[in-house]
């Protein structure tokens, strides 16, 4: 029960934080002088295309860009009625992309869940690789196993991701017949879900997961190793040995359990790092994730599009930290009881 209340409380603070983030995001997308439309109008005027100007002016009014900034924010959020009544983020209307001339939701559509998919796969990969390797490296510290793991880890950290991507594509295609680029075979794009499509996506996921996850995994592995080594020096480990435990079982039950905390706390940091870190990789690999869209939108000052993408990344981060906070409370009685009494 206690934990449910905490989760609810944590969810509440997350929503508040999200509100704050929205203010920040709105400020950021309005930081560059002018906006997409006024830039366009100036350009059209300069080239003498008065017809286009009328449409742009219409859009300006349509999206309340002629209003003061604070009103624009509230209209964007859906807290104040715009030209068409309440119609903002809260109502599920994410705005209009001027660059692509389509609603934001339509552009982002598929890439939203593909982003989630790619990053979840990468996070899973990070944890599945880092956990056993980190523990092994700590248990066998200063042996060949440790050094080999560290060497591979540093290689993973040091190799530029896009280079790794190109290499993997080349050899993967040549020897394993793995597909190159994209997240599914072209014939499935825009098709409804089917087993064939899922299979195609999974096969296409292999290389991106590996590429995006390697550096995270090696960093995480080193951190887990360091944490484990700290814990292994603690007296309670000796106590466990003195009881007559087998080393492997002792390792799992005691030091790993304690070293696990930072590991869990990292979930929150991992998500945004991956989303923003995978932009370049996504461009190189031709993944239809949100990264390239964000890059494009920021370059062309497509404010509603970039605003939405930024909000989405923030949401992912906040969800990640919320999950890790709740997990930590479940895992560590010290955190759980601290709030009760001293």
């Amino acid at each position, binding site marked *: 029960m206690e934990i449910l209340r905490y989760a609810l409380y944590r969810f509440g603070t997350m929503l508040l934080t999200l509100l704050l983030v929205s203010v920040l995001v709105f400020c950021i997308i309005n930081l560059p002088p002018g906006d997409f439309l006024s830039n366009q109008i100036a350009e059209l005027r300069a080239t003498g295309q008065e017809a286009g100007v009328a449409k742009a002016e219409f859009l300006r009014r349509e999206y309340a860009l002629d209003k003061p900034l604070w009103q624009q924010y509230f209209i964007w959020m859906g807290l104040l009625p715009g030209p068409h009544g309440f119609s903002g983020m809260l109502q599920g209307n994410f705005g209009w992309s001027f660059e692509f001339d389509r609603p934001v939701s339509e552009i982002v559509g598929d890439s939203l869940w593909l982003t989630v998919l790619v990053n979840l796969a990468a996070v899973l990969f990070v944890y599945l690789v880092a956990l056993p390797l980190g523990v092994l490296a700590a248990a066998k510290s200063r042996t060949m196993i440790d050094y080999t793991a560290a060497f591979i880890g540093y290689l993973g950290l040091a190799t530029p991701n896009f280079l790794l991507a190109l290499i993997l594509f080349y050899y993967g295609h040549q020897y394993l017949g793995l597909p190159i680029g994209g997240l599914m075979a072209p014939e499935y794009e825009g098709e409804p879900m089917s087993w064939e499509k899922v299979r195609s996506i999974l096969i296409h996921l292999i290389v991106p997961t590996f590429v995006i996850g390697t550096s995270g995994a090696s960093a995480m592995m080193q951190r887990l190793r360091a944490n484990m080594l700290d814990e292994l020096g603690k*007296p309670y480990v*000796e*106590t466990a*040995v003195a*009881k*007559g435990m087998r080393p492997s079982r002792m390792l799992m*039950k*005691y030091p790993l359990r304690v070293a696990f905390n930072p590991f869990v706390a990292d979930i929150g940091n991992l998500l945004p790092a991956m989303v923003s870190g995978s932009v370049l990789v996504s461009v190189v690999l031709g993944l239809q994730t949100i990264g390239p869209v964000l890059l494009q939108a920021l370059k062309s000052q497509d404010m509603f599009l970039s605003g939405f993408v930024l909000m989405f990344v923030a949401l992912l981060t906040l969800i990640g930290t919320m999950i890790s906070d709740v997990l930590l409370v479940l895992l560590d009685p*010290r955190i759980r009881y601290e709030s009760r009494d001293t």
Partner: protein
Amino acid sequence: MRPLLSVEDLSIGFGKDNPVVRNVSFSVAAGETLAIVGESGSGKTISCRAILRILPRAARLTCGRMILAGKGDGGDDSGDLDLARISEKQMRHVRGNRIAMIFQEPMRSLSPLHRIGNQVSEVLHLHGRTSEAEAKRQVLECFERVGFPDPERTWRSYPFELSGGMRQRAMIAMAMVAKPELLIADEPTTALDVTTQAQVLGLMKELQQETGMAMILVTHDLGVVANMAEQVVVMHKGRVMEAGAAEPILRAPAHPYTQELFNAAPKIPQHPTAGRDTGTKGQDKDLILELKHVTKTFTLRSGKSWSKPTLVRACEGVDLELPRGTTLAIVGESGSGKTTAARIALGAETVDPGGEVLFRATAGADPLRVHDMERAARRAFQRQAQMVFQDPYSSLSPRQRILDTLSEPLEIHGTGSRANQRADHRDRAAEMLGLVGLPTDMLTRFPHAFSGGQRQRLSIARALMLDPKLLVCDEPTSALDVSVQEQILSLLEEIRDARQLSYLFISHDLAVVARIADEVAVMRRGMIVEQAPPEVLFHDPKHPYTKALIAAQPVPDVDRPINLKLVAQGAGAPENWPEAFRFAGQDAPPLVPLDPGHKVRCHV
């Protein structure tokens, strides 16, 4: 009788270096206690860990045999085992099952994330003794035996919910639950308060008598040896200096090193000695420091903002007077408020309204109110009052050379002429090093090049750099070996007399205080319960808590064992004190002068 465990010719080394333990032999019989005594670095801990082969990875047993006698009952454990040679698997069967171990730091020797019940019952599961339900029954029984009032609750608790003494009881339960033949206790009570130590030692002795197990007790404290051991081994630098039955050795140590240890051990004087004449017995006392009605309440904020915060009284109505050139000691166990009182005296902590601290830099000067000073006055006060900290290992910056550490106070207070400031500071630092007995060519070294005792000398030198009038010493010797402790105390006395310093001396150790103090205040839970000069306090203690503290102090004298009854009564709740001292809740009786200079908190 055949010994249960006999260690013969044991040597342990790290890599190719000289062995750290050389040709050590000892043996222990069932029902008997063997004490291994030595200072830090003597190899006592590593020798006893070698028995269970719990050694750092780089350590090697280079020679020797460790024979654990078999039970001779035709069962699995019938034959003799050489612990130095059996396989890891056989060793695991011995660990926790036939030989159990208790470690020094109960705070850190239990996993913080697992419930006590889980950690203790694990021993039974590991050795495949019993079913789940039977294991729990045995563990609960064991909890009750070691003195947990509510075993079920202990079973569900996490270590951080228990006090230090209770955690050590949990450790003892963990060691005892499988009914081992031998218990190895590595400094089991060093981290505990003295009354708790007495009770834990008493418990261990009782358990030994009940079960007939053998015990190896590793300790630095000859007092503990005198109370516990039948056999004793004195170690120094990896070698055995003296070994044999405890009583003759304690009565008449033969080896010079053992004698040295004895002489260094601070003792509570048994017969009244004339107090040091401080020349301040007259009517107008020249007080350098005065605490008046000092009360300090801390607010413990609970994590939830809507629940009421808890108030904790760290100090309650503390009145203290420190005459110039003397030492006032505050004695108490952890949580008694002694350190808070010291911090208040230095102005590092505020006081609750109504209390004040007065400081007089020179005789007859106007008193300074420590908690009501302007910035400039505060700086001037800080020059006059300095502190020596408890832990010499963490109170010196490892990245600063000694010269920089020593001259930092001078820089902060901007003393010395600007022209040749550096040279001035250097001279001053060299002078102070000389004063504390260190060679002056050590100025350019870093702290890691110094031993614990040398570091504490450096801390004292640092405190003296500004030529203060008052030193607050917060347990300055508790992290040190006895022989070093002795030297530091002598140094502090010398400096006090040579420079007319006044000390406010905080300690948990009555024996240390007995030696250095002119006046002792005993604190318990924020209140002074008794105050007198040491020669009065130790020979005519009135308050049950003072009596308990004195009784609990292990003395290296086989004829003066710890009186557990006195300890239990005085260290218990105030409701159980004798009539004259008893109180409940906040209604403590006042501190009344029984004789001139002897104040006791009691009903008159």
